[in-house]
């Protein structure tokens, strides 16, 4: 009893007529923007700088720019480092803590153990790197969620900073540290230059070496990467080492800036770093994001922070603004992802 007439009507000649050129152009632009999340951040930076300058010209005074540049050196380097674990699909909650620890550890080595400054830098960076190595090994060998193992360091790192100093700042450190931070080169603060240098190096590594490509692959699909002959575990370990080492670098920048080993610094900085990376288009699921975006994400946060001060907004509101910016960035990111998924 097959009483249903199923015939094949003539095929409609679909997709034959050309769409209006304007629409095509619009979609091409939309597609480019969707594939280039960095564009939005750069635009936001430009707009906000323009507005702030219009409201208060002292925002772009050399003095203020140099202050922002020094801040940026700190947040920016943390953010770029943080983006490595995030690219592999993980997260690192320890950078703030490692920053604090490295600073006081360096001060302690220098002042209490009389280790010369250059050697201090080497030792501290090695220690920071090995903390990252431990994170990486826990994540890859023991399958500990990155969130958990780096949380352990978040807590113990701050504790170690307090233990070394017994809660009191360490002063009389080698003037080399402070000198590096305050001696401007052609008007540029060295931390800013260091940040720029690191950005270029990281860009080169991620986009122009096969190890960088493999890092993205591991974040995009760990199993596929493994079956394609990529030693996924090593790439993941590398990511945590990079993140922890950059926190070590920032620790010494902070030490130089304050000119004392202060245990209570950098609390919560890991969240700023994560926020900058996310705002810059690094996916929380791993596998995508570029250093340009992260750099501008950090710049955006710094510009907003500094702008609020210039506008005499109470510091108590700053965190709310930071949270709001992050919320907007995440929302836009998900909308973009959904649009991409729909076109598929």
């Amino acid at each position, binding site marked *: 009893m*097959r009483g249903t007439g199923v015939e094949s009507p003539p*095929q409609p000649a679909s*997709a034959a007529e050309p769409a209006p050129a304007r629409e095509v152009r619009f979609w091409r632009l939309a597609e480019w923007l969707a594939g280039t999340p960095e564009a939005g951040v750069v635009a936001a930076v430009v707009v906000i700088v323009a507005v702030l300058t219009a409201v208060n010209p002292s925002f772009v005074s050399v003095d203020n720019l140099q202050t922002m540049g020094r801040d940026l050196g700190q947040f920016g380097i943390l953010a770029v480092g943080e983006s490595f674990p995030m690219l592999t699909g993980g997260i690192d909650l320890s950078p703030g803590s490692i920053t604090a620890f490295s600073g006081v550890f360096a001060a302690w080595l220098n002042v209490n153990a009389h280790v010369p400054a250059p050697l201090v830098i080497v030792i501290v960076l090695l220690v920071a790197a090995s903390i990252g190595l431990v994170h990486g090994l826990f994540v890859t060998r023991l399958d500990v969620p990155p969130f958990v193992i780096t949380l352990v360091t978040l807590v113990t790192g701050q504790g170690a900073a307090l233990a070394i100093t017994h809660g009191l700042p360490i002063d009389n450190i080698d003037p080399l540290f402070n000198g590096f931070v305050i001696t401007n080169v052609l008007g540029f603060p060295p931390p800013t230059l260091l940040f720029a240098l690191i950005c270029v190096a990281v860009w080169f590594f991620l986009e122009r070496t*096969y190890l960088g*490509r493999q890092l*993205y692959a591991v974040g995009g699909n760990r199993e596929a990467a*493994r*079956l394609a002959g990529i030693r996924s575990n090593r790439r993941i370990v590398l990511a945590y080492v990079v993140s922890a080492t950059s926190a070590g670098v920032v620790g010494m920048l902070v030490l130089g800036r304050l000119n004392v080993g202060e245990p209570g610094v950098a609390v919560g900085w890991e969240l700023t770093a994560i926020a900058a990376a996310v705002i810059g288009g690094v996916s929380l699921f791993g596998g995508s994001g570029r250093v340009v975006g992260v750099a501008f994400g950090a710049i955006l946060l710094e510009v907003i922070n500094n702008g609020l001060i210039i506008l005499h907004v109470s510091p108590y509101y700053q965190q709310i603004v930071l949270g709001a910016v992050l919320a907007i960035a995440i929302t836009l990111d998900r909308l973009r992802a959904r649009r991409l998924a729909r076109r598929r």
Partner: protein
Amino acid sequence: MSAGVAVRLAGVEKSYGPVRVLNVPDLELLEGQVVGLVGENGAGKSTLMGILAGTVAADAGEVEIRGVRLSDGQPDHAQQLGVAMVSQEFPLVDKLSVAENLFLNRRPAGAGPLFDRRLVERGAEALLRDLGVRIPVHRLVETLQVPQRQMIELAKALGRDPRVLVLDEPTSALGPVESDVVIRVARDKAARGSCVLFVGHRLDEVRRVADRVLVLRNGELVADLTPAEATEVRLIREMVGRELEQQAAEPPPARDPRTVLEVHGLTAEGLGPIDLRAGAGEIVGVAGLMGSGRSRLLRVLMGAQARLAGEVRLRDRPYAPRDTAEAIAAGVGMVPEDRKLQSLLVDAPVRWNLSLAVLPRLARRTLGLLTPRDDRALAGRLVRDFGVRCRTPEQAIGTLSGGNQQRAVFARWFATEPGLLLLDEPTRGIDVGAKAEIYRLVEEAAARGMAVVVVSSELEELMLLCHRIVVMARGRITGELARGDWSKERIMTAAAGTSMAS
């Protein structure tokens, strides 16, 4: 006989953007029938099923389930009306037991408001017994293999006692024996008055199970056939809209007598001991049921799973890769079973996916640096040579069709110029038209002198492609058949695990 109408679709249309993916002016499905539905990927099968199950809202038209109009896009309403669907994905809760999954959204008969483990497990056992599968009901779902999960999905759907049962390629992950169970269940359900919509890739199976076969092409129902009319040739013609040329009955003979792969007493967890040999230009098929160790064998050879003992020689050199990187360096490549999970960087450009396995080699001349020029040149060459249809190599590979994705995966491995190519279900989820091109690639690999080991659940595929077929059961090789010496029956006998004289 209007009482017998289980499903009626009238003027149902669905478009995504400018593309109309489904247009069914009028269709009735009767109770007590198994209706087969076939069509190429993208023909609109999933959309049609989604509309029946309420997960997809139609743009126009109406759907009636046993005389009641289905509210658009409401899965719970469809369920209430008695529609149950078994899909290719398994929405099972990994951390719960088999029994708990089976009773996820309902209580066993006679249970109070409290969770009664005994009653649930007993109910689950009864459901699985009806299916004739033995899976301990207290096991966590995450510990189960894909075919077992498929059976649990089926049991879950049957547990709701559906009046309309939609089976979406229910056998694609199953071996012949389990497939027979599914077919029996479908027939059984129909005999008891339900309507079963059986969507399938394997045409012989659809013909065997169905009382009526519908063919979808470009969203339109183009044929409505009796099983007698639905010959394989006819079905394929209706699906692709053109006659598919007949495959060469014989693969080109393996002319190169050199042995590429030699395996002696290889054991790994759940595998072995295995003895195997493959020569240059030879295509060796591996048949066997799910869980027989077929994929495991390939994974061990690829260095993706640890081996326990045994000796493997590759091109006359000892071969014992500790990881996949060493395997690739030694000249081995593998196209894994699950394209999305094991092969693709779905959101990354086609270019990245193509060069993934050759990155170190691509960058060797330049001290680890990846020059954009070399990278693009490689991608462009592979896209051209392998006929990967894409707008640009920069587009995300997830936007391509299954067949094109698979071509890209083949290109990735050909680019490493392996001596041994391992293929695990190379045509899974690929439509009929594109399959022929994948076969051509496999033959091409052999023609270039690679030894090819191909695992497949489709016996026809192996019998078409291979020079030689080995059959596995319970981790061992239980039979070896040369071309001209095999029949489905002999392969199945060996796959069942009873020893045979080869």
